[in-house]
């Protein structure tokens, strides 16, 4: 078990990145162009920080954080439901940045520009990993069967899906709420394992990280955010960094992937698997150019 202990910071980073990635994926998979993840990450994180510093136990805190996220999401959903695509993207981005700027101003609960320190780090590693695993299982479950089909269809063609009987509006609200809950969970994990939280952690750069995780790992498939998080969170620890050019390299990688391999790692793996399967089942007579 010493590997886990030795790599604790890396595993924490991977966990938070994975949760952020799943939060965005849940929304995007249902055709909801929401970048509000980091906003919920922020509200969840600050709420958890305040409760934990006030002496609350971790599971009561978690419960409050999740319920608050659901309520906030349900509050925002009707306003956002009339917006489509770029307008929704813009509104949710504005929400995230609004929360960040509010955090800087509202110093009593957020510690202002400095942020909050010395938050009790009460979430042990096994529980942290278990929470991530639960989210992965839930996401996997919603991507298969009838629910998976309904969501895939509605992402592609809302009109068609409605005519087939899919309640598009309800499913998109559900996706938005689910995305919010997982985002807030990420905030809770960040706060209860790292012990610090501030405006620098909740701004545009975190949005970029979440998107990187998705692009690298695969935006639509359930293993995607996990793969992306492992790469983004894990690789720097093992690969000797190219110094300050890290960010440049990361940006280039994301750019190339998003243009040429938008399905990310998960897509590459899936394609390879399909290729292997086809080769195996192809009869000799059919092998041709």
């Amino acid at each position, binding site marked *: 078990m010493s590997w886990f202990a030795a790599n604790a910071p890396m595993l924490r980073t991977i966990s938070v990145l994975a949760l952020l990635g799943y939060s965005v994926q849940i929304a995007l998979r249902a055709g909801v162009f929401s970048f509000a993840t980091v906003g919920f990450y922020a509200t969840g994180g600050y709420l958890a920080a305040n409760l934990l510093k006030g002496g609350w136990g971790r599971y009561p805190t978690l419960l409050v954080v999740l319920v608050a996220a659901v309520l906030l999401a349900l509050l925002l959903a009707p306003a956002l439901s009339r917006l489509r695509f770029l307008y929704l993207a813009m509104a949710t981005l504005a929400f995230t940045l609004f929360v960040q700027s509010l955090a800087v101003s509202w110093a009593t609960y957020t510690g202002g520009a400095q942020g909050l320190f010395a938050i009790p780090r009460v979430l042990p590693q096994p529980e942290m990993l278990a929470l991530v695993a639960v989210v992965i299982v839930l996401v996997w479950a919603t991507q298969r069967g*009838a629910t998976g*089909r*309904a969501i*895939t*269809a509605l992402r*592609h*063609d809302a*009109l*068609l*899906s*409605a*005519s*087939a*009987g*899919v*309640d*598009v509006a*309800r499913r998109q609200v*559900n996706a938005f709420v689910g995305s919010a809950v997982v985002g807030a969970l990420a905030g809770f994990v960040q706060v209860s394992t790292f012990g610090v939280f501030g405006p620098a952690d909740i701004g545009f750069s975190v949005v970029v990280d979440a998107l990187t995780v998705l692009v690298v790992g695969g935006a639509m498939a359930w293993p995607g955010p996990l793969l992306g998080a492992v790469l983004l969170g894990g690789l720097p620890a093992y690969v000797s960094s190219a110094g300050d050019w890290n960010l440049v390299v990361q940006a280039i990688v994301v750019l190339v992937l998003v243009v040429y391999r938008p399905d990310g790692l998960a897509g590459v793996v899936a394609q390879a698997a399909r290729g292997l399967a086809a080769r195996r089942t192809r009869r000799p007579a059919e092998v041709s150019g």
Partner: protein
Amino acid sequence: MTVLELSEVKVHFGGVRAVDGVSFTVERGHLVGMVGPNGSGKSTTVNAITRTAELTAGRITFDGQDLRGVAPHRLRRIGLVRTFQGIRLVPDLSVRDNVRLAAENDGTGRRWFRRNERRDSDPVADAVLERLGLSEVRAEHPEALPYGTQRRVEIARALATEPTLLLLDEPVAGMNRAERGEIARILAELRADGLTMLVIEHDLRMLLDLSDHLVVLDFGRVLAEGEPQATAARPDVRRAYLGGAREHA
């Protein structure tokens, strides 16, 4: 027994009177054809029936129920299902999944974590695939299939909902002769089975063979309706059609 009734339906947007007083009925077990030159209001009428366009005036009744205020995804539940002018299938799903999609989403909305009420949806979907001769391609994805086959998948998807009325919006648009024949044959079979259908089409000849009743639209109004051959032979109908879409060879 009237399945669908349009009563003085008007749909105006801005200054445009797309539909300006259309009334007709579709009786159970009939195949009603709706024709008209471009701009006659056919598409808008379809949109009004399927609740993607709001009525400015008039009433649409389906199976005795006024459709005012009914959300589009609820139509499937009351038995009103459509196919689209351009083929709309989900590319990321197989043929079978495209059909299952319609079979299992009954428009009631499900609660999280509660099992699907319609446990028989898979057998229904498979039966429809079999019926339309699609079982062999069930695992394929739509883009890989010929156009005529894709249309068949779309019809299969609609049938999987066990509809009371099937509305087909230009089902043979853009098809060659062989493909048209294929679709016409299927529609004839469905009609023989007693399915009620409303078919919007440019291809007058196909409708003359298939339909029990013909409605001709022009300038947002019903120009003529009645027995297909007789209606199509009317001079005012012929005039409206000259300059509009001609039957393709």
